[in-house]
């Protein structure tokens, strides 16, 4: 099992709330999101499309659409500059300031589709050296040399030649490696990955995830990882935030979320995904669809889809219940007055299988070691 030792917090998102003005009215996309990213750690944000996971991290980068309004909250970023430690609120900076001071050099982002993230008219070398020349004030020659090293590091065969190539000459997996190299070129503290492997094949996906992990360990970067794939989350994350309708409904270490989930939505997500051991005849499907965020949400947003919903769920929003130091759940079921609801049986069986598998692996490893 993985040991969690908390580094210093490097990014703290506090009570972030964002809405969009649309022709149909105000859309409350983010309704109070808080989480902390510690140094060297990976936080995964999982959720369905429309849950607000991308908007949350885009606000860290300052990627805003014109109809967006930040209603509340702060994003505290701690970094050292000239040997001094500083904490700033990223939301207080203008877009231009942010680009000049943070984006790319301190906080970098990898996007889902590597073809749209790369400029088709510029060679790989030009795109890779751009950040280094601008932020690190390197000479073109030095940056080019460094670029070749970076490409080698991310596993591109024949990096010298690749610098001259254009994006269309490379495969999807190779392009995503280039995007990672560009993101890492200025030695950022934080790497934000927005569904970096969703567009890739499973075998390529596994390689890219491995690459992100090794780069992270080598450089001690903190990573925010956005995905809807709970399998990917299990591979990369130390810490998981489950998002639903613009709120984090459960937050905990990966083991807490997978082995001791408390929120019915998390149960549903875990059950809806068939694993290689699923034999049941039907998959557990969360009924219904996510709520319309144009309307004001009264009570718990998940209540209409929740088979364990209590009356109070329709009236009042559940507060945060702290289960352990790291584990938080927003559900009325945690209230001492609520009826006791056990984890669904099927999920319990799955958790048992998970534990079995890991102990079997421990035995195998120890026998190999001896």
């Amino acid at each position: 099992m993985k040991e969690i030792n908390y580094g210093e917090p490097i990014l703290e998102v506090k009570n972030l709330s964002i809405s969009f003005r649309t022709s149909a009215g105000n859309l409350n996309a983010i309704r109070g999101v808080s989480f902390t990213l510690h140094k060297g750690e990976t936080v995964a944000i999982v959720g369905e499309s429309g849950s607000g996971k991308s908007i949350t991290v885009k606000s860290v980068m300052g990627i805003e659409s014109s109809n967006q309004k930040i209603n509340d909250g702060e994003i505290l970023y701690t970094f050292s500059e000239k040997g001094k430690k500083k904490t700033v609120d990223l939301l207080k900076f203008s877009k231009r300031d942010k680009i000049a001071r943070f984006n790319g050099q301190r906080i970098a982002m990898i996007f889902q589709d590597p073809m749209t993230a790369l400029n088709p008219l510029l060679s790989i070398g030009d795109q890779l050296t751009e950040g280094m020349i601008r932020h690190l004030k390197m000479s073109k020659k030095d940056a080019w040399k460094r670029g070749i090293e970076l490409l080698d590091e991310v596993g591109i065969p024949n990096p010298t030649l690749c610098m001259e190539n254009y994006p269309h000459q490379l495969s999807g997996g190779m392009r995503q490696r280039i995007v990672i190299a560009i993101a890492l070129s200025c030695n950022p503290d934080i790497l934000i990955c927005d569904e970096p492997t969703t567009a890739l094949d499973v075998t390529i996906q596994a390689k890219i995830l491995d690459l992100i992990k090794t780069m992270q360990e080598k450089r001690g970067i903190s990573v925010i990882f956005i995905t809807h794939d709970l399998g990917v989350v299990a591979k990369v994350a130390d810490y998981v935030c489950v998002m639903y309708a613009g709120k984090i409904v459960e937050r905990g270490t990966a083991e807490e979320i997978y082995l001791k989930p408390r929120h019915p939505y998390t149960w549903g997500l875990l059950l809806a995904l068939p694993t290689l051991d699923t034999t049941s005849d039907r998959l557990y499907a969360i009924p219904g669809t996510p709520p319309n965020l144009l309307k004001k949400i009264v009570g718990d947003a998940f209540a209409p889809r929740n088979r364990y919903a209590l009356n109070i769920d329709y009236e009042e929003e559940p507060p945060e219940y702290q289960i352990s130091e790291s584990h938080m759940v927003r559900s009325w079921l945690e209230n001492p007055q609520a009826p006791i609801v056990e984890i669904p049986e099927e999920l319990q069986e799955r958790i048992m299988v998970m534990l079995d598998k890991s102990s079997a692996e421990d035995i195998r490893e120890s026998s190999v070691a001896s």
Partner: protein
Amino acid sequence: MENNTLLEVKNLKQYFKSGKTTVKAVDDVSFKIKKGSTFGLVGESGSGKSTIGRAIIRLYDPTDGEVILGGKEVSGKMTAEKKKYLTSKMQMIFQDPMASLNPRKKVIDIVAEGLDSNHLYKNRKEREEKVFAMLERVGLNHEQAGRYPHMFSGGQRQRIGIARAMIMEPELIIADECISALDVSIQAQVVNIMKDLQKERGLTYLFIAHDLAMVKYISDYIGVIHLGHFVEMGTKEEIFEHPVHPYTKSLLSAIPEPNPLTEPTKKLITYDKAKEKVDYSAGTNHFLSENHMVLGTDEEVARWMAV
């Protein structure tokens, strides 16, 4: 065994010419699907898995090979009679429900299109009744029949796609990545509908997907395809418990499993066709058991079996 085979594909080849080069998207593929079963096709993008589905339903004209559906040949030159037989027996569900539904048509007309072109109703009322019954079967209500596709969510649109395919009462459904574009919780809803309908109507599915856990869950037989060749084929137990071909093994090792205890340390098995000097066209089909097939030369198969 012979008589309960619904679909038989023999030496199917689908080449595409682009300029001077010919792309062999599907190169000599043969398989059978039993009536009432689900055959899963897996492979990476560009492996030719969608092309197989599209060649069978004649969205492409196959370069060579034979397709036999319910004892009748449906490949070769198409006649009006053959076409009618094909559309009444075989239907397809596509990946992107937004792109596969005509945005300018109402749901009722989209779903009824097959009925319209085959004159499968006596009057408007019967047409309407048939469509309403089908919509309700897939979990939509008939008040939604007058709406346009953009007014629905992704999961609902895919239900419309299913209704459109099912209303023809086909025997074989080709589902091409039909749940890949949906969210996890919605995926489960759609898969459950497909499974229920299969049980009710004795349907046969050709399920094309890249999500291996889902393919394992839904399929009885699985074909693993790489660069236009079936490299391994067998029951799902044979493929998942006793894989032989190194490509299958690498594919299986890459599946991200939702288990934080084992997943972070899992080793990826890599497969490089060129490095291992595997030539698919030199290999022959080796049957390890009645259903378990591996493509390779004698020497290769012996080597892989020994591992």
